[in-house]
């Protein structure tokens, strides 16, 4: 019964003859949607980059032996004092080894698990970097470097040299960038390190490591597992930490608890280790969306305004259409379809502008000492943003068009024609 051809024809004529208002209204939507796309792509790109910065370097589950006091002090084993109030002064941590008991069987067990992407052994130890009489404190980690590259993108952070060089050099060390700068050392030089026990070893620098976090770069260095075991004078089964990367990060929390019980070691999961970090991400997303929605609502009001004006201007036309047999619904649809057309045109060009601006930002140089792998500003080209953008454009123009067009539907032609 609704004659769309006629209705759309009238709507089109209105839009074309009122080109200025049409363009203004469309531009409102265009800028709203364009700004939304740009903002959300840029912000989530930035978020993702910061997430990756942490997530890439952090294992999902970290197994190690914690030095801590026994939960059950010896007095508790005496049945005679079971009902007494026991006070233990000056509690000392329990004497235990830093190495993980049965580390190699645990590793091979973990590697068989289908939900685990990889498990890597590490040895962490304190050392001193020696430069003449100067001693700089630091950490040395023994690692399986090719596994670290596979699971934690370690090669992104090796700014000079290569992971293969470390793999192939018996006495190689991957020196932290801060240490290298302080001691004026470069790839190919030799450095002397001393262990806590006082043994001195010369190592060859095969690469420079820069995480972007200067507190880490000033102390941290890496060597092969075997090298560290030899420096410490320990056997091949001496492993202090096991890092686990999962396929599904959501499993980290339950799995950590399970591993802790199974192997009697301390297991921390990524959420526990980076609780404050996730809060930051949530808040940044919240800001992005509230700003975007504000922009779109402003655009919606623009459309509402312009349609309202148009309807006042077209009062006589509405009366005449009704007098010649167009129903209220027909008139409403004429104005609704104008709003929706503005939404489609404005929304699509908004998507195009948003995409263009995103491309522009994507190509702007962004080089910083802290992030060695980033050369331009990060942009997240998620197609969902575009779907949300156009949906919101349609939705807001629909609502903005509905209210004035509903008024047009109710206009009494007799009152307009009589001029009262």
């Amino acid at each position, binding site marked *: 019964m609704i*004659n769309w*051809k*006629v209705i759309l*024809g*009238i709507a089109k*004529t*209105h839009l074309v*003859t009122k080109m200025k208002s049409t363009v203004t209204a469309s531009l409102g939507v265009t800028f709203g949607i364009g700004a939304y796309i740009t903002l959300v792509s840029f912000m989530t790109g930035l978020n993702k980059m910061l997430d990756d910065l942490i997530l890439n370097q952090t294992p999902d589950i970290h197994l190690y032996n914690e030095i801590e006091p026994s939960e059950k002090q010896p007095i508790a084993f005496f049945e005679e004092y079971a009902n007494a109030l026991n006070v233990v002064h000056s509690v000392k941590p329990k004497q235990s080894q830093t190495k993980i008991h049965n580390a190699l069987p645990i590793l091979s067990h973990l590697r068989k698990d289908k939900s685990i992407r990889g498990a890597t052994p590490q040895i962490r130890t304190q050392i001193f970097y020696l430069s003449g009489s100067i001693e700089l404190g630091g950490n040395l980690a023994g690692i399986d470097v090719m596994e670290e590259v596979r699971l934690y993108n370690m090669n992104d952070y090796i700014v000079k040299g290569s992971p293969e060089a470390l793999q192939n050099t018996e006495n190689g060390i991957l020196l932290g960038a801060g240490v290298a700068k302080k001691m004026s050392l470069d790839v190919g030089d030799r450095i002397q390190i001393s262990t806590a026990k006082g043994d001195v070893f010369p190592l060859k620098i095969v690469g420079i490591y820069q995480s972007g976090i200067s507190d880490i770069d000033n102390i941290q260095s890496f060597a092969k597992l075997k090298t560290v075991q030899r420096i410490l004078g320990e056997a091949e089964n001496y492993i202090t930490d096991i890092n686990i990367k999962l396929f599904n990060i959501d499993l980290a929390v339950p799995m950590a608890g399970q591993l802790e019980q199974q192997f009697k070691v301390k297991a921390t999961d990524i959420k526990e280790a980076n609780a404050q970090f996730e809060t930051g991400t949530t808040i940044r997303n919240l800001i992005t969306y509230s700003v975007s929605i504000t922009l779109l609502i402003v655009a919606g009001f623009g459309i509402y305004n312009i349609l309202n004006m148009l309807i006042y201007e077209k009062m*006589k*036309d509405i*009366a*005449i*259409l*009704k*007098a*010649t*047999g*167009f*129903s*209220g*619904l*027909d008139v409403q649809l004429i104005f609704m379809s104008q709003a929706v057309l503005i939404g489609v045109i404005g929304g699509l060009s908004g998507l195009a502008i948003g995409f263009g601006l995103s491309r522009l930002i994507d190509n702007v140089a962004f080089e910083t000492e802290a992030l060695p792998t980033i050369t331009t500003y990060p942009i997240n080209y998620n197609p969902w943003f575009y779907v949300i953008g156009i949906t919101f454009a349609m939705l807001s123009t629909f609502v903005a068009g509905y209210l004035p067009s509903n008024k047009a539907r109710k206009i009494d*032609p*007799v009152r307009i*024609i*009589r001029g009262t």
Partner: protein
Amino acid sequence: MGLVLKTENINKHFKKPVLFHVLKDIGFEVKKGEFASIMGKSGCGKSTLLYILSTMDTDYEGKLYLNDDLVTGKPQTELSRIRNKYIGFVFQFHYLLSEFSVLENVMLPAKKLAEKTDAEIEHNAMEKLNMLNIGHLVNKRASRISGGEKQRVAIARALINDPSILMGDEPTGNLDSYNSENVFQIFKKLKEEQGLSLLVVTHDVDFAERTDRIIQMEDGRVIS
């Protein structure tokens, strides 16, 4: 001869600003092919009556028949269709859609009715425009033609769906004597050649006296 239009005891009140009884027990008929005019002083309710007859105003008591069919109480969408199909309307001020061309203005009600193809509608519209001697204006914008031409375009638009009755609310009120005469001759020709029924509200005594019948109104009543 059958009746095109019939009213029974139509009463209407204006509620604002104060309660006012505008139309009192209006009852009259218009026969097929009759050219009737309504006359009366300003404020006697003749325009108000016409808007009720045109089905645009539904706020009244009484009964209105169009082609022996009770119109009163029908839903708005049905009334829109009735206006579209059976009633042609010409106003004092031409009331064309200024953004559309003359041809589009004339074709619009027929397109809405959608009983004919666009080609047929265009052919009919051209026929009406030529009959009214304004065939040369078809592609002009409605805002770019003179007042007399506009009124003829409005008549062509009122005729496009071949209505049962043509109603006019002072169709010559805004025209000079030459154009008024022109419009009257058109109406007369329509009645004589096509047997169209006409009902015209007018102030113009010369105009009214040449119609078949004058319905005289005073203070909301039909007095003759």
